[in-house]
């Protein structure tokens, strides 16, 4: 008997008319590269939703960058039919909703909303690599929400696979027997049908009140050029129908429901969505900020008294200045950010000017990956050349007169009498082979980390938990971690409040003039090494001028490091080649043109390239190639 339901069976699981006990909502928790998208492709094929011919590899990952990096940024949901043999003979069709989750730590909030839309989760682990820190973090989230967990080892076809070893590790984490860990290959399809059967058997059916006022949770929203914002929802209670007016409970905004439907795998309009169902809404709004992930949708004429969960806006954790290398590209950058914002509710920015870099924007990001993705999209999709300043976190500075400043840019760090500076901290989890414990401890200690605990997942693998200032992570922590553990360590972190720290602002002065782009907020103990490093770097980058240029690093009025660019002594062409004055004049014209491209700080001419080189981290550059 085919597991693909026949026409009569399909009728029993029609969208808007499927009884909740025939629905299964699940997600896949997996690390980057552990094969989630390939497994999803195989499921789409096995359930007949996508045939071989129209199959595009990794169907769910739509954006170019996602495909290239092999990660999923935006989640989506696909409805798949699946028939399971009944104990008394015959078979029963079910509707399976696979909700794709973002895999990265920067998007924890989106992950938690995706998990909230499910009753079960497939824990997918590469049989050659074992579980990674980010997967572990998401697994904890899923277990906290009481999701049924189906542990699965993927890539069992690989020669390097060690399924027995990792089955034991996973069983130790989720409880149960190593034999219960399913073994599949997304590539060959082995074990995937069994997995679908297990989902039907083990994931609980959704429960809700069909007669109550409608309540649906938004777990994703995407901007589409043709349709406007497409909002993905999971209905908890009641029913949503086309043409009715809906109410967003956090903003109290109302919209007409122009279209409602399910994705299978393309959008299919339906007569609505009932209890436990997952699908999409289109209201004609143009900005994803009108459809906030985590918000509750209800019916305007019969509104629910209470939202499903308290909504909170995603809060930028990391800030960086983005400047066009060509100043005339500023309007292009502004338009590009406005466009990206339509599809990225977490992107926050405001105009900023820098003496050194001209006009740009201070942009807030959820984390470093988010920063990198946004920067890359700006450069690739909008053809911009950008300089991004060193990323920094948000500091809360309390003055002795009790006024409080939120500092997102070192240049805004207040002068005067400061009573306290607070910085965000994170709880970080590092998973690594146990032989690297020493190296990891050394790194975390040098980054002001505090060890919270350590557990062996197996004799060879260890989980280390630390509290770390976020500022210590945003620069090059991950690169350092990878290089000290030969790439074996994985990292996850989550916000864990803030702490008062002994932080100071280090300024860099060229001939006594402060250069805003080079200021940094660092721990008091690191001010000296930052100052020395930056002054040394600039000494190499700033061309000699007609006069001596002192480079100073200072905390307040105290100079902590000093270098000097010696005065240029000779700048004259001695000879005119047989009266070739044309050549000499053209050389002068070229020099004058070159001077125009320099930024002048006080009297010092600094080429744009010097700013770029001084602000980019060398290690970051190398790492890009490695990732």
């Amino acid at each position, binding site marked *: 008997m085919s597991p693909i339901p026949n026409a009569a069976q399909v009728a029993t699981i029609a969208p808007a008319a499927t009884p909740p006990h025939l629905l299964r909502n699940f997600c896949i928790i997996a690390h980057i590269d552990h094969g989630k998208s390939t497994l999803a492709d195989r499921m789409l094929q096995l359930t007949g939703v996508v045939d071989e011919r129209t199959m595009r590899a990794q169907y769910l990952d739509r954006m170019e960058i996602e495909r290239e990096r092999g990660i999923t940024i935006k989640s989506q949901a696909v409805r798949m039919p699946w028939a399971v043999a009944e104990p008394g003979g015959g078979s029963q069709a079910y509707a399976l909703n696979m909700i794709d989750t973002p895999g990265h730590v920067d998007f924890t909030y989106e992950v938690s909303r995706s998990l909230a839309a499910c009753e079960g989760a497939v824990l997918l682990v590469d049989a050659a690599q074992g579980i990674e820190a980010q997967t572990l973090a998401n697994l904890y989230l899923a277990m906290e929400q009481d999701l049924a967990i189906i542990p699965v080892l993927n890539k069992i076809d690989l020669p390097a696979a060690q399924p027995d070893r990792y089955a034991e590790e996973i069983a130790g984490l989720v409880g149960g027997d190593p034999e219960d860990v399913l073994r599949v290959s997304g590539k060959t399809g082995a074990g995937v049908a069994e997995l679908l059967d297990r989902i039907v058997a083990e994931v609980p059916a959704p429960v809700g009140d069909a007669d109550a006022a409608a309540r649906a949770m938004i777990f994703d929203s995407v901007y589409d050029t043709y349709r406007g914002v497409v909002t993905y929802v999971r209905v908890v209670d009641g029913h949503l129908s086309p043409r009715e007016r809906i109410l967003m409970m956090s903003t109290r905004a109302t919209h007409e429901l122009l279209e409602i439907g399910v994705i299978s795998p393309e959008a299919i309009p339906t007569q609505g969505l009932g209890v436990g169902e997952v699908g999409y809404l289109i209201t004609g709004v143009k900005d994803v900020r009108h459809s906030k992930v985590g918000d509750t949708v209800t019916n305007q004429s019969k509104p629910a008294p209470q939202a499903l969960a308290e909504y909170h806006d995603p809060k930028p954790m990391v800030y960086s200045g983005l400047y066009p290398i060509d100043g005339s590209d500023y309007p292009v950058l502004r338009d590009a950010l406005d466009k990206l914002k339509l599809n990225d509710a977490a992107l926050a920015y405001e105009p900023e000017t820098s003496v050194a870099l001209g006009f740009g924007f201070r942009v807030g990001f959820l984390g470093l990956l988010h920063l990198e993705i946004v920067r890359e999209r700006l450069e690739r999709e909008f053809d911009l050349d950008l300089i991004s300043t060193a990323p920094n976190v948000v500091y809360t500075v309390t003055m002795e007169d009790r006024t409080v400043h939120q500092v997102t840019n070192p240049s805004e760090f207040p002068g005067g009498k400061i009573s306290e500076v607070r910085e965000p901290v994170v709880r970080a989890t590092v998973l690594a082979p146990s032989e690297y414990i020493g190296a990891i401890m050394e790194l975390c200690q040098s980054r002001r980390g505090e060890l919270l605990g350590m557990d062996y997942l197996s004799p060879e693998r260890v989980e280390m938990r630390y509290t770390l200032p976020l500022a210590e992570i945003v620069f090059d922590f991950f690169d350092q971690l990878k290089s000290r553990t030969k790439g074996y360590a994985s990292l996850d972190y989550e916000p864990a409040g803030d702490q008062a720290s002994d932080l100071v602002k280090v300024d860099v002065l060229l001939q006594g003039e402060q250069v805003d782009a080079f200021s940094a907020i660092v721990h008091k103990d690191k001010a000296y090494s930052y100052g020395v490093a930056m002054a040394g770097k600039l000494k190499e980058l700033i061309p000699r001028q*007609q*006069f001596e240029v002192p480079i100073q690093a200072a905390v307040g009025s105290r100079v902590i490091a000093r270098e000097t660019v*010696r005065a*240029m*002594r*000779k*700048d*004259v*062409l*001695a*000879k*005119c*080649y*047989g*009266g*070739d*004055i*044309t*050549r*000499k*004049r*053209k050389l*002068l*014209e070229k*020099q*004058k043109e070159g*001077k125009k491209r320099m930024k002048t700080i006080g009297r010092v001419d600094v080429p744009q390239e010097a700013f770029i080189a001084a602000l980019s981290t060398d290690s970051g550059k190398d790492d890009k190639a490695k990732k």
Partner: protein
Amino acid sequence: MPALPVGEAVPDDGSLPGWLADVPPAAPGLGLYLHVPFCRVRCGYCDFTTYTAAELGGGADQAGYATTASLEIALAARTLSSVGRARSLSTVFVGGGTPTMLPTSDLARMLATARDELGLDPDAEVTTEANPDSVDEAALERLAEAGFTRVSFGMQSAVRHVLATLDRTHDPDRVPQVVAWARRAGLAVSLDLIYGTPGETVEDWRRSVEAALETGVDHLSAYALVVEDGTRMAGQVRRGLLPAPDPDDQATKYELVDELASAAGLAWYEVSNWARPGAACRHNEAYWRGSDWWGVGPGAHSHVGTPQASVRWWNVKHPRPYAERLARHRTPAAGRELLDAASVALERTLLGVRVAEGLAVQSLAPGGRTAVAGLVADGLVDGAAAVRGRVVLTRRGRLLADAVVRALTA
């Protein structure tokens, strides 16, 4: 060899724009530069237009060169008179290459042609360059008899290892000898020196300058070595066989030559030139003052101007097409440029600031005038001269002359 500038085409007959006829020249006098593109060996650092016998095929050989050059001198006379600019010559300068690779009689013949075609002022300055090892006493006497008044020897250095790095073959001990012969023949004498050669110490340089001054010459030129792209030396520097010249070292050496020359009674009159009173090279000065001059020979540059606009042109570089064009009564010019008032003004600043009499502050654009105070404050421009309305470079200012020009023309 330096690439020729990119310019517009020159009419086949080499004729000049008619508007030159209506306006007086920017500066008095007319100069003639005669280029002799031959050397016995090619020096590793040199990027001037020059060829050794082995590099040249038939039709462009040394034997026929005086005849070919004389054709261009005749062309110069015709072209200049058609725009009313033919005057008797105030200066003639024969450079190279190595002019003394030609027989003295050839040099005398070219000078005679110039005298016939254009005329020569009674007090004209007539110079030839020479290598210390390519002339003897008799040759120098013959040059004086032919009308030459001045000789400039390519001494470069008094230190053997420096001369070897420069591929110079002469014996440094011969320099005082040839200077004495030239003076005995009644010629004014100048010596050329090069500083900043890889491996040259400051003491080496001091020895060279002292040796030059001890000969009693009344004119000295000192040029910083520039490693030009495409030269053999550039390749040696690129491959790490020779260190690149260090600008700080060159600055120290410039300061040293300026000190020693001044102490010996030779004052600077242009960034790279020192002379006793009255002994400055007038032909050289004409370049910096924007006078008219005609450059004869492969790769030679010419200039004819007015205070508002001017023409610069340059000849084809290789002796063979140069000779072929003249044989067909065509101009040997490869291209030219017409300078508008703004470019003329820029050049006036660029060139004028390099000489000791300086530049009138009034001749600068308002932005340049504003910059003078800052340049005085930085010690690049002489304050007392500025008060008198002249921009005159200090010693430090001479070393940073290009930066000063950028400030004055910003």
